């Protein structure tokens, strides 16, 4: 299929699967953690090979195109860095007795299953397969969230599970409806579930059916994106699970679900009788931004704080895609990438902080820049970046988004800006307490590796100042694709 | 030749204001005394006072700084420069373009600034009280004065005193409501600025009511002489200003020869005398007001100034 003599797509999928199988049986945390890093690294390499070295022809099941390659690379990259972070992080959890070796083995295996699920969802060229993959990824994260088996963790996992299952059901119903709509046009059988075919023939679908389908898909996958008012699982799942999982949830799973929504949006856009998806997405996006912004003010738990911030940013991204147009779509894509990198960096930092201080309660954390300058300033940098201040990448996307939409929809943009400002106020208030002021809590040095955090922040910083031409062209293609 | 003449006129002006200033003060005191059925000191008494003060040694408080000693000279200099630029008996002074009416007011502001600082230098409660009240009065008087300037400048299209005065000698200006308002306001400001009754009493030493005297309480000898001189100069300046702006007749215009200058000088003296008498009568016939009523008084001046400016716009547009 390509010059390297191996099938990169297959590698992206099979490596995590094989890794999961291996990790499930191997004992010893040091070995498994390293193996986890290795497998994730190989997957990343495979994904890069996919970028560099041509793409396979779309088949019945798998597809690699401009749209999903962005997601695949991002997914494998953050998967890799998180595995590095996790390797140093999870050892501490073992020492502190929060996890037993058995659970750790389970954790590593599940990590790879989850990566497999997400990669599969991204490369699937089949709406059924994609649904299966998203659900697989969701269910594994449910298990991961509950892995500490504390009351709170179980409660969070249960909430996630119930809401996720309803989302699963709704998305499946939507998928069936899409098939029903496609069948008269495409014909019975597998063809009626293949993306590339669907997109080609979408114009002939029954609009009413497609519309209903989209509602179900938007709500189903939107639950996983964390859009208000379907967001309820998100903060608790982030807060109670292991921090690497929080990073992966915010950085990746939300994107995967968003990717699904985008795919269906494309489908609807290709249908002349379909409802305008823009207003729906814009409404939900704005609702998420405002809700999250307001909710940020009363947070006491540091991870929950940043989980709400993820809701806010998902709202911004959905808003951007809902507005459409080359600039807004570009902004949405860029924002998504930058948010993934930044938010996972923040969660890395938060993980270190929580381990040092032995608590996630913000009232017991303070003066980090004084006691742990590298960590503290990285947290500052991360929050500054996530708040959309320059010279970080999110600034660029927010700049493009707000400046290009204001002339088109002033009222909506002003609402968005109000939400941004509100959220910023809350985040900064917390940051003030966390990073500055009199130091509070334990001051022992952290034993974990800061490298993943620095790498992410450096990337975000670089992207804010300079985006390489190929990346831009790539984004622009996708933006044009999204309409 | 013309330049030399101009320089001579300017020099004469400077000398005249410096020499006449104590006389005006003495004159007002004398008139006031007569109005109060006292004989009063001679009109030349201020000169004698000055001479005596100059001869005496200066007693300076132990913790006074250089500012305390420098301030009197700066005040005199600033006031003198300001006074030298107001047309007294002749317009067309050679240096009149170096400062317009706004600058003259600001120069007086500089003098006040240093006086207030000097009052605070020794660190006594009276110095502070005086400085504080002086600045409060100034904070109202200065904007009122500037609004008056606006009225005049908008009427004359200039802030140059000479230009305004020349213009006002011409009959086409005529009587204007706004100018009347400006005159009333200017008189009120002048009273306040010079610390006259009802704002302040230059003759008092009742501590709680004084403003100017409180600031200069620690001064003695030549320093006090300078301050007294500056105060006299300021009074002269304001009377000259009112005279030049509102009764400009008789001012010698540039290049009109020695006779005109003589006429100008005589009319000027007459104007001063009239101004002095009016001031004395006014002061005698009114009681001093409480400090916290001063803002109302000056607020009225401020309003009059503003009203004058606005009326000007109305009349212009008609």
């Amino acid at each position, binding site marked *: 299929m390509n010059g390297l003599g191996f099938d990169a797509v297959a590698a992206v999928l099979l490596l995590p699967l094989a890794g999961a199988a291996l990790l499930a049986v191997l004992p010893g945390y040091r070995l498994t953690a390293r193996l986890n890093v290795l497998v994730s690294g190989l997957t990343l390499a495979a994904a890069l090979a996919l970028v560099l070295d041509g793409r396979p022809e779309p088949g019945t099941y798998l597809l690699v195109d401009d749209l999903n390659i962005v997601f695949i690379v991002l997914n494998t990259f953050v998967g890799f860095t998180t595995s590095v972070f996790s390797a140093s992080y999870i050892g501490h959890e073992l020492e502190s007795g929060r996890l037993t070796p058995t659970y750790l083995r389970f954790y590593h295996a599940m990590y790879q299953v989850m990566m497999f699920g997400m990669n599969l969802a991204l490369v699937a060229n089949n709406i059924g397969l994609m649904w299966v993959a998203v659900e697989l990824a969701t269910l594994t994260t449910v298990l991961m969230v509950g892995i500490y088996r504390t009351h709170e963790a*179980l409660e969070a996992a249960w909430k996630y599970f119930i809401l996720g299952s309803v989302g699963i059901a709704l998305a499946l119903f939507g998928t069936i409806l899409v*098939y*029903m709509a496609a069948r*008269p046009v495409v014909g019975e059988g597998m063809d009626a579930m293949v993306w590339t075919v669907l997109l080609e023939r979408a114009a002939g679908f029954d609009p009413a059916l497609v519309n209903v389908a989209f509602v179900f898909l938007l709500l189903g996958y939107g639950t996983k994106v964390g859009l208000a008012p379907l967001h309820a699982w998100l903060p608790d799942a982030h807060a109670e699970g292991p921090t690497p999982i929080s990073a992966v949830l915010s950085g990746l799973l939300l994107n995967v679900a968003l990717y699904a929504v985008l795919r269906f949006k494309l489908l609807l856009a290709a249908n002349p009788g379909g409802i305008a998806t823009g207003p729906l997405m814009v409404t939900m996006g704005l609702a998420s931004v405002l809700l999250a912004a307001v909710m940020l003010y009363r947070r006491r738990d540091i991870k929950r704080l940043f989980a709400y911030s993820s809701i806010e940013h998902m709202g911004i991204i959905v808003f951007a895609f809902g507005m459409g147009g080359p600039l807004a779509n570009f902004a949405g894509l860029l924002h998504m990438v930058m948010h993934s990198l930044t938010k996972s960096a923040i969660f890395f930092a938060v993980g270190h902080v929580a381990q040092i201080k032995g608590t996630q309660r913000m009232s017991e954390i303070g003066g980090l820049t004084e006691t742990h300058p590298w960590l503290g300033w990285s947290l500052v940098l991360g929050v500054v970046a996530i708040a959309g201040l320059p010279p970080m990448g999110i600034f660029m996307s927010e700049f493009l988004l707000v400046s290009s939409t204001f002339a088109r929809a002033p009222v909506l943009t002003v609402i968005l800006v109000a939400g941004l400002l509100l959220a910023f106020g809350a985040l900064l208030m917390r940051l003030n307490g966390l990073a500055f002021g009199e130091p509070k809590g334990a001051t022992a040095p952290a034993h974990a590796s800061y490298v993943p955090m620095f790498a992410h922040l450096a990337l975000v910083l670089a992207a804010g100042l300079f985006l390489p031409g190929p990346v831009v062209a790539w984004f622009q293609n996708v933006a044009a694709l999204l309409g | 030749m013309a330049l030399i003449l101009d320089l001579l006129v300017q020099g004469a002006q400077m000398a005249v204001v410096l020499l006449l200033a104590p006389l005006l003060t003495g004159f007002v005191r004398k008139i006031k005394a007569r109005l109060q059925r006292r004989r009063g000191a001679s009109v030349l008494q201020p000169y004698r006072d000055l001479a005596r003060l100059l001869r005496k040694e200066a007693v300076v408080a132990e913790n006074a700084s250089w500012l305390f000693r420098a301030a009197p000279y700066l005040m005199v200099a600033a006031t003198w420069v300001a006074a030298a630029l107001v047309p007294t008996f002749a317009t067309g002074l050679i240096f009149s373009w170096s400062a317009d009416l706004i600058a003259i007011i600001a120069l007086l502001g500089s003098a006040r600034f240093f006086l207030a600082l000097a009052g605070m230098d020794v660190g006594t409660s009276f110095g502070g009280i005086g400085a504080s009240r002086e600045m409060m009065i100034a904070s109202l008087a200065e904007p009122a004065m500037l609004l008056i300037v606006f009225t005049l400048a908008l009427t004359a299209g200039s802030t140059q005193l000479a230009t305004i005065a020349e213009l006002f000698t011409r009959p086409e200006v005529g009587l204007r409501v706004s100018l009347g308002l400006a005159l009333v306001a200017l008189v009120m400001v002048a009273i306040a600025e010079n610390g006259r009754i009802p704002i302040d009493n230059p003759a008092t030493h009742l501590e709680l009511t004084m403003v100017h005297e409180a600031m200069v309480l620690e001064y003695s000898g030549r320093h006090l002489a300078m301050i007294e001189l500056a105060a006299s100069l300021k009074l002269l300046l304001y009377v000259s200003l009112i005279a030049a702006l509102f009764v400009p007749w008789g001012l010698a215009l540039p290049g009109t020869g020695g006779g005109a200058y003589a006429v100008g000088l005589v009319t000027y003296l007459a104007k001063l005398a009239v101004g002095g008498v009016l001031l004395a009568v006014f002061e005698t016939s009114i009681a001093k007001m409480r400090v916290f009523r001063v803002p109302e008084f000056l607020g009225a001046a401020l309003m009059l100034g503003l009203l004058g400016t606005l009326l000007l716009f109305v009349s212009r547009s008609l």
Partner: protein
Amino acid sequence: MGDLTFDIAHMLAGGLVLLSFVMLYQDRLYALLNVYALHAVVLAASVAWQAFAQDAPHLYVTAAIALAFKAVVIPTALHRIIRRLGIHREIETVGGVGPTMLAGMGLVALSLAVMLRITPEAEPLAREDLAFALSVVLLGLLMMVTRRNAVSQVVGFMSLENGLVLAAAGAKGMPLVVEISVAFSILIAFIVIGIFLFRIRERFDTVDLHALDRFRGERR
């Protein structure tokens, strides 16, 4: 496809909706489980009828799965759980039965309104089927929302899934992958629910979600 085929499919689908209403009305756990088993049986029948009507043999497998798992295994398991936990008391519903039923009526009307907008040229079977399936889905969701007890919520969720299967079966020629994944997900769902129920009992001595509420985030 003859009228009879259509009528029977219609009747079975309508029966599912009716049973969903019965479940909404039912306020005792055991009875609820029994009704749910009946619901699954009717579903199996419906799917089987579709298999017959569409001449799609793989649907028989789906029907069999539905019959075996949903009508027998799961209700039995839930029976045992209920007995072991000793929670066979009455279900606490939120709001009265009357308003719930009215809401259910509204939902059915909504489903019809939404689905009847589909172009009439589409096969009427699919159209009617979808309307009923949507009703079942919405009623299942309504049940989850109006019940406080975890077991009855699970039942609500499963009746919702029945609606999905009904829809999938009605989709002519839909590849087997869907049925497998449905079964697959139900399996996983059930396992995970089982684990959770087990843990929840272990931790909280009750499956009433009230107990869980104490541990909602940040209320520490």
